């Protein structure tokens, strides 16, 4: 299975943003956009739905907190009861700081790992740079030529309004 991609290059972030908006409005299928730095509003321009990663963070945080709270109660009240200054064995205030820290640890580290897994970024992975310039000063938008009526000249005309630098067709084999 192979796909025909159209790689368009821009010099300025605002041009890329405007071109992405125009591409979406004209019904083109956007493969992805590549930039040297995070461009605010690009996700909206590409028509991406908001990430579900936040829900994962919430669930990770809550499970971290519950697990650690239970573990502290189990170690200091059930498995090996420890009398600290005559306080009740299950003194929740004493467990709060560690519970809080473990909640942050689970939510923070878990989110990063999950993000890397979802984006298929793991150590030793070979970087696939679609266009060398995006690591420096170029902004790239990639469209998928997914139907017969796709006309490269039309795209060239459309993107010309946004100071298109270069247009290149690629065939992606997978």
């Amino acid at each position, binding site marked *: 299975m192979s796909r025909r991609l159209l790689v368009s290059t821009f010099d300025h972030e*605002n041009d890329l*943003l*405007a071109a992405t908006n125009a591409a979406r409005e004209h019904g083109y299928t956007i493969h992805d956009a590549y930039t040297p730095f995070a461009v*605010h*509003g690009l996700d909206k321009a590409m028509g991406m739905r*908001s990430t579900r990663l*936040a829900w994962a963070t*919430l669930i990770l945080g809550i499970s971290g907190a519950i697990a650690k709270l239970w573990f502290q109660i189990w170690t200091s009240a059930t498995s090996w009861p420890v009398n600290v*200054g005559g*306080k009740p064995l299950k003194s929740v*205030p*004493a467990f*709060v*700081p560690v519970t809080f820290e473990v909640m942050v640890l689970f939510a923070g580290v878990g989110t990063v790992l999950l993000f890397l897994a979802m984006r298929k970024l793991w150590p030793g992975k070979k970087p696939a740079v679609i266009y060398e310039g995006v690591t420096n000063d170029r902004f790239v938008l990639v469209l998928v030529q997914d139907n017969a009526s796709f006309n490269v000249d039309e795209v060239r005309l459309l993107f010309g309004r946004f100071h298109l630098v270069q247009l290149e067709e690629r065939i992606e084999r997978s």
Partner: protein
Amino acid sequence: MSSISVPARIALRPSAVMMRNLSILAFLGAAVATAGIIIAPERGWPNLLLATYYLIGLGLAGALFVALQYVSNAGWSVAFRRVPEAMTTVLPLSGVLLVLLFFGIHTLYEWSHEAVMANDPILQSKSGWLNEPFFIARTLFYLGVWLLFSTVMVKLSQRQDETGDIDLTRRNSRLSAGFLVTFALTFTLASMDWIMSLEPHWFSTIFGIYNFSGLFLNGLATMTLIVIVLKRMGPFQHVINDSHLHDLGKLIFAFSTFWMYIWFSQYILIWYANIPEEVTYFTRREAGGWGVLTIVNILFNWVIPFVALLPIWTKRHEGVLLRVCVILMIGHWIDLFWMIMPPSMQKEPVVGLWEIAPMAAAIGLFFLLTFKSLAKRNLLPVRDPMLEESLNLHT
């Protein structure tokens, strides 16, 4: 991408009805509060202290926000910087109220009675700091320093409207750095003098930060509320966008959690050590109605704002943010009530006319002065080098 250019002038014309109602609220509140001080001084004075402290907090939070933006060279907030600047106009008035409070020293502060001091070895050892002349001198010193810094910072910022001199921004950055350091020291001492010394045997080294967290949280909430009101009234309609609200929401969310963090830090150390002279503060506030108030305090200042502002969309939603701001403004009053009242309300917390009137006056006066100050000049710092960046904020 079409970018928003800087409009020449945006003016606020507050409706006469609103200003009249605020004046009535302030006048009635002040009249009843005065009556309260005469009829029931043991309730009138602590409530005047609360209202004054609340007002000073709002004014200081305005100066603090402006200073933080200058030292961090922040561009996003420039579009509404006139709002925190206007908030500082309550400082002179709250200074007058503080001077008024000197007449209530003997009702408020146990340490101001020589007979009590003479028979109390613990208080005697603190008499070098806790005595009337030094207390009054310190209060005047704090006020003077705050007034000086806030007045000059606001003046320089306003002068830029006429001259457009970029050097004014640099001068304000340096001034802001000085203010932040000075504020940290003076406000820590002020909160100890005015609030902590209500219970002179008790002490807490985190008290200054705890008071700062409440002050800044309430300041952010009030500022956001004014920004949203101005957006709804019209002047800020095309100035403030979702990204500004999102950033303000994030700050409120963060400082609400910071408040809870500090509240709990104070609690857990005292709870763990369980030393009688420290722990009485919390045992008094855990019993009966005060215990309920402790929980309500945490609900209003952290639980509700935290849950409400957790998703992205609520921070960008005018209506949700506005409601959270109102809850936080009430929450700060509860927080101060919880700190100030127990020594004078030994049994149960009581909220009646004497409690509500001074706060009504403070709120009325605050909005009256702030809106008056905002109406006086251009709502945008039109020649600030970072205004265009702020108007085009996009996150």
